[in-house]
């Protein structure tokens, strides 16, 4: 293959939101710290950027262009502070225009467009997770809007996160409500797959809906929604006081509004989700929730900024990854080696992937995977 640089591609990436493309000096730090180095992989982020700078072929393969989980590890380590995720997003946007979007992601994009959720489920079923619970509807007199991640609305395992959270909020007497079927996916992962117009459609729908309902404060159940509401919606006209459920629960525990009666006596390791930790720098609150629940904390070797991605970001949660290439497998092994009985986290994607790897690794009897709200709910009794 002739390697003739084609700089129009470089310009197109820069124009599509990859402004930092040419700030990269190719040191290779990103590729060294990338979680893909821990498994066999062709995905080398430095090379992706180099090919982008020169406009050369080689990035168009599914496992390469769509390999990045947007975990932000490279960005926090980049000596030039290059917005590598922005560059990847721009490249995927160009890929999308050329029809390079992988099949599985196309289904997700289509579902977001028609159903307002990525899970291929009907919009009306968005409230099914509430069955059997008395969840109040959001009105103007309500303090918080509880914005439940699509995953926790539709996925059978994940619904329990939302249900546990509702029980805790009611117990603590928090004024909250749910809008329900009118809500749409926040669009975080959709944007990362390069579907900019799909993201804008969802964002406008949500911003219009929330502002129309006079929403001031939002509780999110996913760090991905949290990231979108705090980092991406404000410039589109959505400015609210947004709080991740771990932050609210930490407050409630500290204020004594949730009394721990049972005490959660198990050994718990906390897995920092990329979008809560590295992206949003929320490290302490989830830990104080778990400590408040009476958990015996055990440390995994990689924590906080150095946490290992579960592999579910950037659209990867919907893509197939063979078992030996899953970061979540490495993570559950780390938790088991650290002597944890529970691997707790605060992200529905992490829960989905870690649950799966717990089973494939045969750790079902040894290790539970729980959201921190589930841990606290058990401790509060």
């Amino acid at each position, binding site marked *: 293959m002739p390697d003739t640089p084609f700089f129009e591609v470089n310009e197109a990436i820069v124009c599509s939101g990859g402004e930092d493309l040419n700030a990269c000096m190719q040191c*290779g730090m990103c590729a060294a710290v990338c979680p893909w180095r821990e498994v066999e992989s062709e995905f080398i982020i430095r090379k992706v950027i180099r090919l982008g700078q020169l406009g050369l072929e080689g990035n168009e393969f599914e496992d390469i262009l769509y390999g990045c989980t947007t975990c932000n590890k490279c960005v926090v380590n980049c000596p030039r502070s290059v917005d590598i995720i922005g560059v990847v997003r721009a490249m995927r946007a160009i890929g999308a225009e050329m029809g390079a979007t992988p099949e599985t992601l196309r289904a997700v994009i289509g579902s977001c467009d028609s159903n307002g959720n990525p899970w291929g489920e009907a919009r009306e079923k968005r409230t099914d997770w509430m069955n059997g619970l008395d969840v109040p509807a959001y009105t103007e007199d309500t303090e918080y809007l509880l914005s439940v991640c699509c995953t926790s609305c539709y996925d059978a395992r994940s619904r329990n996160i939302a249900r546990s959270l509702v029980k805790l909020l009611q117990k603590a007497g928090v004024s909250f409500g749910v809008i329900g079927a009118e809500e749409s996916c926040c669009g975080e992962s959709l944007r990362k797959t390069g579907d900019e117009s799909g993201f804008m459609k969802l964002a406008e729908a949500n911003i219009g809906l929330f502002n129309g309902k006079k929403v001031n404060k939002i509780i999110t159940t996913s760090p991905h929604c949290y990231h979108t509401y705090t980092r991406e919606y404000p410039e589109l006209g959505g400015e609210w006081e947004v709080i991740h459920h771990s932050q609210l629960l930490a407050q409630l525990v500290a204020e004594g509004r949730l009394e721990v009666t049972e005490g959660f006596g198990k050994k718990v390791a906390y897995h920092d989700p990329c979008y809560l930790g590295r992206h949003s720098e929320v490290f302490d609150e989830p830990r104080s929730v778990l400590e408040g629940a009476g958990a015996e904390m055990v440390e995994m070797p990689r924590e906080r900024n150095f946490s290992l991605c579960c592999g579910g970001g950037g659209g990867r949660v919907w893509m197939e990854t063979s078992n030996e290439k899953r970061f979540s497998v490495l993570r559950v092994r780390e938790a088991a080696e650290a002597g944890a009985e529970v691997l707790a986290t605060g992200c529905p994607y992490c829960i989905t992937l870690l649950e799966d790897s717990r089973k494939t690794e045969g750790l079902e009897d040894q290790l539970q995977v729980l959201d921190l709200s589930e841990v606290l709910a058990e401790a509060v009794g």
Partner: protein
Amino acid sequence: MTTQEYPQFDTLVLGAGIAGLQTALDLAEQGFQVAIVERDPSIGGKMIRLSKVFPTLDCASCITTPKMAAAAHHPNITLFTYCELNGVERTGSGLKASVTQKPRYVDPDKCTGCRSCEYACPTFVPDHEQGGFTSRKAIYVPFSNAVPQKAVMDPENCWICGKDGGQCVQVCATDAINYFDKPEDFTLEARSMVLATGYELIPDYSEKAFGPASQHPNLITSLQMERLLAPHGPYMRALRPSDGKEPDSIAFIQCAGSRDLNLGVSYCSRVCCMYSIKQAMLLSGALPLADITIYYMDIRAFGKNYEQFFQNAKAMGVEFVKAKPMVIGGTEDGAVRLRYEDQEGGGGGMTREHDLVVQALAMVPAWNPEGVVDVSTATDGFIKSVKPKIAPTLTDMDGVFTAGVAAGPKDIVDTIVEAGAAAMEVSNYLNQEALVAAE
């Protein structure tokens, strides 16, 4: 306690590293009266702590010690060691500096440097002069060629071991030890000043960049490697710290903090490529069978004979790998594990283990003038040169000059040249001032 009065000096030099010493010597030779204020108990700065220097491979001690001795014995130079500068204010055309003499707990006029106290002292403390690899005593002469050769006591670790005072007191023939020594403030007046405050290495690089799991006893700094290679180093041989094993494989990580905006270091530290190559060469001599690898971003060999030096290292078999590795942690047999992208090979992920890994850490300013001397610093924290191209030793304060790494990273050659330039600027300034006063 009486405070000694000093006559007005022509110049006050802050810092007694090679920059400060060279400036002071050049001025003293011209007949100016120079005061040198140094924070450490010995003069000599970073250079006296090095092994050999590039590209000539001269012994650092052998060429620094004569400068130290010359400064110490020069009739026109007065040394103030173990002193902290608190503030400088302008008085008419001159400067008034308030200085604190830190307590040595040893009377320097009585101490003969015989080291009997050091031998008698029962307390062992990690010796940072030897990279922390060996120990010193709680009362000690800083290092073998320290100037002045006077003992200093470290009150943090002395526990006054004997019934009638410590064992040091019992053995001191001149009654030089004084447990009740206190900090002493005094003022120095000078007509001009040179800031030659040098650098430190950036702290906690690998922990900040790669997390606590990356910490390892065999992951050392470049200045620690200088000590391992120095003729009077901690082990007298190049051994690795964790178990004293002779390392079979040694790696250098370049740009460890330099050119890293995350750490606030936007600049190249300029000397790391060359000193790592030098260390690699010295190791090739000390451990002829060891594999030596330098992980680099790009090699900056810009000075006279530097490129040839780099080519010689390649010819000697030093392996150069273009990569910026991540430090993962250690192995059971004490090696440090690195992960990097094999950019020049297949492009895949590589994990390699080295018995000893040296980080070429970024140079950061050792001193911040804020609140002490009214000169500005640039965004990188180094002292701002107002005419960086044609008069790089000028600061934005009249009569205050700068030399060496205080103004930005540079090697010893450039530092010495700049020190000479600073001395000439000071000399011109003082002569000009005298002419104006005469009119």
